[in-house]
């Protein structure tokens, strides 16, 4: 169990690093939106790993809130990007 959690932590860290690279590099606003969504999914996955390791459910509400924030954020920015398309990226 400890080994699995360590492996999962390494994989999630590598995933977060790649996502942060895309978040920093862009090139467009919508690329960053998708990268932010994936980063929030990775955060939720890390919360789940912690819950499975310590065998509690305290983070479950936090996971739902994280996914809700990701949903609202990406929908809002997608909407905004449509209306300012003429101004470039």
């Amino acid at each position, binding site marked *: 169990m400890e080994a699995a959690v360590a492996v999962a932590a390494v994989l999630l860290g590598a995933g977060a690093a790649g996502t942060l690279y895309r978040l920093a590099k862009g090139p467009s606003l919508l690329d960053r939106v998708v990268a932010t969504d994936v980063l929030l999914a990775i955060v939720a996955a890390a919360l789940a*790993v912690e819950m499975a390791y310590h065998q509690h459910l305290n983070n479950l509400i936090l996971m739902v809130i994280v996914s809700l924030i990701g949903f609202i954020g990406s929908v809002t920015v*997608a909407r905004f990007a449509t209306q300012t398309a003429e101004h470039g990226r």
Partner: protein
Amino acid sequence: MSPVADTVLDVLTAVCLVVGALMSLAAAIGLVRFPDLLTRMHAGSKPQVFGLLLMLTAVALANRDPAMVPLIALGWIFQLLTVPVSAHMVGRSTYRTKHLNRDTLTQDDLQKVLERAQESGSRDGQQTDGSAGTR
């Protein structure tokens, strides 16, 4: 619970955790390597749906309380409802702001719809492109 069943559940939990974390890594590799926004969206939705399912399965297996399963399932169903909506909005916005690579598209159904909307709009003397309702 018997020790054998305990060990089996522990191993299943570990497998779910590792495979779920692999989904996140796969999404990151896809985000870094794929050429344009639509393909990156395809890679990005893997940890959001399947990865989260595996992670929540691991949580349920580690917790071993059947009463909490509906709550965990609710979290996943909520994610299933919101991910397609935000993906639709981002994809539509991608198309509208022309951040896609047309050479990689094999089929484009939206173009016909937009042309039709444009035609009927110019016939009625209205500007459909600017209205919020058609998006």
